């Protein structure tokens, strides 16, 4: 079975090497290093601010903008229905309109304020 222990001589030798390494002097951070790190911090903040207002994302096309303004598929459905209704009203026969009026408003009455035989009222 493999043991996780190093033998005592090796252990002592390695401990001496590690102790020696830990005892070495370590200088504190210099002002120059701190200034470089602070410059990095300021630059990172500036970069983060740019990411908040992205410049690399493509703008939507005018057609896509119009589609969105119309309300997408839902808006387009309503628009299509209104268009077809208008088209039907435009090409439908008067009789059909009359029947629609009758259906919606009851019996229609026709009021004539000008004589059809004397449209200019020249006969008094």
């Amino acid at each position, binding site marked *: 079975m493999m043991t996780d222990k190093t033998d005592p001589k090796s252990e002592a030798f390695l401990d001496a090497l590690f102790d020696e390494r830990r005892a070495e002097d370590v200088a504190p951070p210099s002002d120059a290093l701190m200034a470089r790190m602070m410059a990095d911090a300021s630059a990172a903040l500036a970069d*983060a601010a740019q990411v908040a207002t992205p410049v690399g994302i493509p703008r939507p096309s005018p057609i896509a903008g119009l589609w969105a303004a119309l309300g997408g598929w839902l808006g387009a459905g309503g628009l299509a229905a209104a268009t077809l209704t208008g088209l039907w009203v435009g090409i439908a026969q008067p009789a059909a309109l009359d029947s629609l009026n009758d259906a919606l408003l009851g019996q229609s009455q026709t009021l004539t304020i000008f004589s059809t035989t004397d449209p200019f009222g020249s006969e008094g």
Partner: protein
Amino acid sequence: MTPAANPAFADAPDAALIVAFANGDTAAAAEIMARFAPRVLAQATRLLRDQAEAEDVTQEAFLRLWRVAPRWQQGQAALSTWLYQVTSNLALDRLRRRHRSNTSLDAVAEPQDDEPAAVDRLQMQARQEALGAALAQLPERQAQAVALRHLEGLANPQIAEIMEITTEAVESLVARGKRALAAQLMARKQELGFDDD
């Protein structure tokens, strides 16, 4: 010029400082640096034994912190733990790169000077160079665990948190790492100035 840390931040928790920095307060960054830069630099120096390289690692570790700050999660690893992890990775990376083209421990310079004090100093240099070269040749996780345990003097549960593994796994990594170090270095024990008794 480095802005002074805001006295209002003196008692602020580390996580609050990160949030303040992410919201644009550079005085919070100054406070974070005042708290952690000495320790980060010391950790990098003990691994690399090279002031310029240790400063580069320190600057890089903090640069990563500044960049991750806006996405810092409340309740995630403590800043101290995160910095130990990042510094350890960065410094070991450099150590391994330094020794990649120089994989033989025999390549470590022999003492040349005959003055007793100078011999001691040069032997110490050679020993520590040999230790660095041997650490660089360990598998990465073993090297990280050994360095955190024996160069930083951290307890196994703390190392477990830094390395995101169990305490038992830390113990195993440290033990295997030390056996591998011993196998590399024991043959040169006398040459490196240790009596073979």
